[in-house]
Each structure stands twice: as C-alpha cells, then as structure tokens.
C-alpha cells in the first residue's frame, strides 16, 4: 500500500470515524481520485481485516467498527463519483433481517457488515421480523434486494411466506430475494422461489453483486 494511504488504513483498522473522514479530506485535497482511494486503500485494508478476523487477531466488535468507518467514507465519497463509478459503489439498497420467531443474529450481522463494506446501503430490521414489515420497508426505500436470514427449521415457512408476498406486491417485481442461515440450502432456495443463496458472508456479497447485475 502506498504511504499516502497508511493513515486512512489505520483509521479504518482502529474503527475511528472522525479520523477516517479527516483522512479522506486530506487525500481528496491532495488530488487523489476517489476510485483510487477505494482500490488502493479501502479494499486492501478490508481484505487484511478479514484475514485477521479469520486468524483470531481481531474480532467481531473491531470488524463492526471498521465496517462503520467504511460506510461513512462511502457516504462521503459517493456524490463525488459521477463518471468513474466503481464496482459495488452504485448505492444498491438492501433490506436485511432475521425472519419471524427467530432471534439468531450473528450470521445476519456478518452478512450485513460484509455487504455494507462492499457498497450496499443496508437497512437492518433486526430479528424476529414479520413478512409484512419486510415488504413495507422494501417498498419504502425502493430496495433492490431483500436478504433473509433464518437459523431454525421453523423459520423456513416464514421465509417462504416473505418470498411469496414479495412476488405478489405491485412495485416489488424487480426486487431480488436472497436467503441464508443454518437450515437453508441451495436446494431449498431454488424450490421456494428465492433468487439467491449463499452459505457465508463472502458468498453473500458475491451473490448480491451477481443479482444486481454487476
């Protein structure tokens, strides 16, 4: 990584929002292109953060704080990216939650975080969320994606119900539904009308990008 990016990279690692935004000002002031800030600093830093997480050098709270800094940076840089839009930075909107009756949230939080740092605008409704609330939110924000997490077999009927309701609602024809979590398999996703499935957070980002046509 170029020296000029080191302070920003450090701010992301430390989860320091204020310093992160200051560093962005400095870089933009020095004439660095927004796209380069991403490819030269944010992405490699995030890759490294991910590897450190896998090796138990850092943990979920650090990951969440780093993710937050990156989200703030994205919000600041997005308006500056007219002509040179990059992969994952088109401000795609997604609703995410754990479905009705289910309060398992660790996997859902990891998926949300990875999607967020990859440029998706995530609207997290939390856990134990009824289908109708998911649909309403998707309509309200004109979502591109609905991401449903469920860890228990009894969560599956609620997932299916949400998929069916999405298909039936006018205005949501183009919304793609992605599913995941313990008992969900690719086969279940296919037979129950979901558009995408992934078994981990990295796969979820890949699938989300595919579904959004990137």
């Amino acid at each position, binding site marked *: 990584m170029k020296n000029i990016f080191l302070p920003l990279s450090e701010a992301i690692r430390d989860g320091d929002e204020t310093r992160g935004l200051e560093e962005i000002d400095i870089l933009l002031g020095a004439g660095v292109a927004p796209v380069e800030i991403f490819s030269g600093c944010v992405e490699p830093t995030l890759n490294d953060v991910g590897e450190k997480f896998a090796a138990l050098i850092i*943990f979920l709270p650090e990951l969440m704080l780093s993710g937050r800094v990156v989200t703030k940076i994205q919000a600041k840089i997005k308006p500056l990216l007219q002509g040179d839009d990059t992969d994952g930075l088109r401000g795609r909107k997604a609703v995410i939650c754990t479905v009705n009756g289910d309060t398992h949230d660790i996997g859902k939080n990891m998926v949300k975080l990875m999607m967020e740092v990859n440029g998706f605008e995530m609207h997290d409704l939390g856990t134990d969320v009824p289908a109708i609330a998911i649909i309403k939110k998707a309509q309200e924000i004109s979502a591109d994606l609905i991401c449903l997490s469920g860890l228990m077999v*009894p969560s599956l009927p609620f997932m299916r119900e949400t998929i069916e309701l999405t298909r039936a609602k006018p205005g949501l024809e183009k919304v793609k539904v992605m599913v995941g979590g313990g008992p969900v398999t690719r086969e279940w996703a296919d037979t129950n009308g979901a558009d995408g499935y992934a078994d981990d957070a990295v796969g979820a980002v890949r699938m989300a990008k595919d579904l959004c046509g990137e």
Partner: protein
Amino acid sequence: MTTSLVRLMETLERARDGDPCTNREWETKVIPETVKKYLKKFDLEQTFNNEEPVNQDPELADRFFEAGLSMAAEIGVLMVDTESVIRFSREEILEAVERAPDHVKLGRDSDRITMRTRRPEDKIPPVFAGPLSIQVSEELYIPITEGMLRSPHVQVQEGPSIDTVFGLPVYSGTPFETAAALRENRLRSEAQWRAGRCGIPNQSIASSTTEYGQLGGFAGQTRPDNPAICLILHPAELKMHYASFHKAVVGMGYGGYIYSGSYAMIGGYSGGAEGATLTAIATELLQFPLMQCHFSAGTIYDIRFDSSCNRHSLWAMSVASQAISRNTHVLFAKMINQTAGPGTYEILWNCAAGLLCAGASGMTYTVGPRSAGGRFKNYITPLETWFCGQAFHASAGISLEKANEIVLYLLSRYEDRLKEMPKGRSFPECFDIRTLEPSPEWRKIYDDVCDDLATRGLVLDRK
C-alpha cells in the same frame, strides 16, 4: 433450594431501573473493553495453549475464575428490551452462588438420578441429557425418541423437536408453537412409556423456539414427583430479554428446576479464546443472582467453525470448567457443538473429544448431541446419542493428562477438515425404523471408534 418469584420480580424491576446502554454500545464497546481490561489486569492475555486443549494448569484456571468474578461484578447483564443494565455486586453474586445447590435429585422410580457437584478428574460421573432440540418429522418423533431412551446413559430427555403440528408447519411465536408444545408432551409420554422410561426427567419444551411453547407446555410437562428442567437461553453472552424472564416465571411458578445461560463466542464480542473463557465464567456466575438457577450454562462456541470441537473451543471449555468446578460447588453445563452428521466417524470423534475434555475438567451436566450442527431435519440418530452418554460417563476418573493425550489424538483425526465435516445420513437412512437398530455400516463405525478409544484408555460401556 427453593426459588422465589418475588425475588425474580425484584430482579425484573432492576432491569427497568438500570443504567441505560444501547445494544450497539454494549456489543462494540462495553463487552470488548471490559474483557480486555480484565485479561490484562489478571495477566491472562495470550494464555491459550495449543498443546493443552485439556488444560493442565490449575493455577491458570483459578486466575480466570478471579478475573471472571471481578468482571461479572462490574459489567452485569444488558436487558435488550429496555436497553438498560442489570448489575449485581460481588457480594450478591457470591451469596447467590453459596445458596445454589451442590446436588439435585431428578426423575423418579428406576429413572431417579442425583446430579452432584464435581471437581476436575472426579470419579463421580456427570449427567447426560439427550438430544438437543433438533427438528424431526412428527411421525418419526416416537421411534427416534424411543430408540434414544433405550440406553441407560441417556438420563434426562430434552429433544428432539417437531417441525409440524398435526401436519402443519410450526410457525414460531404463533399458536402453532403453543399447540406444538402440547403435542410434544403427548409424543414424549408415549415414547417414554414405550421405552420403559416413564420416570425420566424432562427438560424444556424442545419445540418451543420462542417463549410461547414453554409458557403453554411447561405446566403439562412438570410433575410434583418429577419436576421438569426449565431451559432458559439468553440472546447472547451477558445479555437478557423478557423472553427469558417469561420462561423463568413459569419454571419457578410450577416448581421446576431452573437451568439458564448463554453462549460465549470465540471471534464474537468477547474476542479470542481467552476472552470467551472469561465471558463464559462471568455469564455462568451471573446466572445465580439473575435467574436463581439450579444449574448454569456458559457454552463456548467458535463462530469461525460453527463448532465447539476445535482446539481453541476445547481449551476455553476446559479452563472455564476447571475455573468453576475448582472454586465453587455449583452444578453447571456446557454444550458440545458437533458439526459432522450421523453415520460418520467424524461425529464420534467430535463427540468423544468434547465430552472427554468436559468430563475430565469437572463439568456436571451436558445436553447433546448436535448432530450435523443441528441444521437438518431428521439428521439425528439414537446411536450417536448413546455414544455421547457413554463417552461422558467414561470420562469420570480420567486424569487431565490422559484426557489431553486422547483429545490431541482425536483432534489429529478431524481438525484440519473442520470446515468440511460430512453431513452424514438421516435417521431413516442409517437406522431400522422398526427394530430401532443401527444399520450394519453405522454400527461398524461405532464399534471401530469404541475399540480405538478403549486401546487409548477411554473405555465405553456399550449399553
């Protein structure tokens, strides 16, 4: 020990009056910072020992205990519905621990057992409950359960759970769930009667995914001459919610035993193996003033592997168990989370490693197995359930040194493939549903593993 609903209401009131704290702040600041502070203060950083998944250093366990107790008295528990903190002083925690029983009598007639406090290397056998709340078809509930209860090593019954009620899906948190609880009670009785285990103690309504099943079904499950165990799992380490209090109210109100706790996740809010160990101890100790529990749980889980049979988890489970069993008289449990499925060598290696580590480290009680991670319907069979009970009981009297030697060997059989553990086969695929006997292939795998373990010093009673 008798529990007091009045005291529970006072705790609930404390939740309403507690200092405010948001969920986000709790997860990203309060837990990680407090854990780091106590790891540093008690010189516990970087103490994970790769060569000792079964801890050999009692002084380390004692230091973890002191740190866990001090941390518990500072941090308290976040009540997520009100976003406020419930705290207990060191004295209150110690007083509640002191009040907790050192033994409880469970079940009736020939199924009567006593769960007793244990120390590391104890000769007193621990108590085994089987299996976890794993979903099975309504029509397979009775054969699977009857099969499991044929082994005397299964001493308490928790699961499995049903995924339909009279053929309709069990939508959790709706009247379908409440009805599923009543249906489960009936099916349980039938299976227990067929297996000749009418006096076996029951634990929780396994089909209760929210509080509804427990609220509707507990009264029908517990009996004055055979009080049921009310399982209360909180939303995360050092967190609480109203659903837990709901369950405690019926558990206490109907004279059941209270068994409460939560997971401490390696890679999660508390950090690495050392952080999760500390949080598990604090979580465990806080259950006594918070829930007036008869026994507590602070299960260790590694979110990188979805397992507690990897080296870091085993070490953390061993240290945390030794910390509690060396320094208190309380009864406690942790779950062993297997990821391999039925009909494979791997699941038996997962089970043996976890249960031997737990039993030798002084654990009193556990519930299992979690075949195939508990993720797939009907992926549970009586054979691995029997094996778990047999292995847990065989761990009594094994030295920590011997246990470590065997666990290291078992790790060498599966550790490098933890992320790709085989899903295995479902109950109808590897069991005869009529005779309730395992298929010859599944039986052979079981015999191979038992023979291998016997040559290494862990002799299972194959009943």
